């Protein structure tokens, strides 16, 4: 907890550049995916020993909050994977490419590609959200 407080203070008192933004997004998306997977393993396990509880979970997933959170989660999954690939590529294959210009460009490209890859899923999931929530599907 103390390290989180120290990190929060420092990261809000230092002017961030692309690499720092990529790092923070990577952490947040990673934690979000971990949280979702934990909940998902828990709810799926309910099928075996508490089926009605599983149904309750499925109903909760159709609530506006969860549906919006899943759309955001999708963005997190795509970004986390792409950014991890970017870092592994630079670190393990092309360390000489770690120049300031290339690094800044690579972060922007990663965020743009993540947005592009997320867009179809976002449209489909967004359509479902509108349908379930407002059109009574």
């Amino acid at each position, binding site marked *: 907890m103390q390290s989180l407080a120290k990190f929060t203070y420092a990261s809000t008192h230092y002017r961030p550049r692309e690499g720092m933004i990529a790092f923070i997004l990577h952490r947040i998306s990673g934690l979000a995916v971990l949280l979702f997977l934990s909940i998902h393993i828990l709810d799926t396990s309910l099928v075996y020993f508490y089926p009605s509880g599983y149904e309750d979970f499925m109903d909760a997933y159709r609530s506006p909050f969860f549906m919006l959170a899943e759309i955001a989660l999708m963005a997190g999954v795509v970004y986390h994977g792409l950014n991890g690939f970017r870092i592994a590529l630079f670190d*393990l294959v092309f360390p*000489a490419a770690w120049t300031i210009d290339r690094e800044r460009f690579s972060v922007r490209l990663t965020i743009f590609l993540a947005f592009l890859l997320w867009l179809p899923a976002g449209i489909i999931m967004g359509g479902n959200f509108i349908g379930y929530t407002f059109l009574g599907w």
Partner: protein
Amino acid sequence: MLVTLKIKRFDPERNPSSWWSSFTLEADPADRILDLLVRAKDELDGSLTFRRSCGHGICGSCAVRVNGTNKLACKTLVHDIGSKIVLEPLLGLRVEKDLVVDMDPFFASFRSIKPFLINGDPLPANGRERLQSPAERMRFDDTTKCILCAACTTACPVFWADGEYIGPAAIVAAHRFVFDSRDHGAAEHIVALAEAEGIWRCRTAFQCTTACPREIKVTKAIAEVKGAILRGEAR
């Protein structure tokens, strides 16, 4: 031009918490931030405390946060920053007074990688220097430029969260010896890097490279040391 120097102050003997002081100075756009600090201390407030030594970007004493970014006060000019200049101590190290931080943990990390030439071989037949080619020298040229100012380590988000992390400066020092053809002690240099608080805590946030006042390609050096360890070349 008229410049406002806003400085984060801390003096445990006067006040347990920090406060801000503002100084308004007449400055030339080509003045260095260090010049302003010296003048503020000499003419306005003698209790203002900061580190300085050479004043020419070699000793690494005067690294501070200038408008939220680590810089050497002696290499940063007023016209690079503007008329509103905010100075704060480096992050992640305990503040002792005003802009002075406790550098002991930083130097302890530096010493842990054994930053000296290790070569047990007997001297060459002529009893003089161990020669290396220009290409061999260029292999680690970039990392010889480090002045141990701590700008990189204190810009690292991993170091902010975990002060035990060895930090980019120590890895840069290890790079300087691991890739030196005259050095035969790579295995000893990397012992501290292989530990839990060593090189693998690096998350390549790239803050170190952007903060380095000597323009060392720090993240590249870290990646090269990682690669040398992974491929078993650092022996």
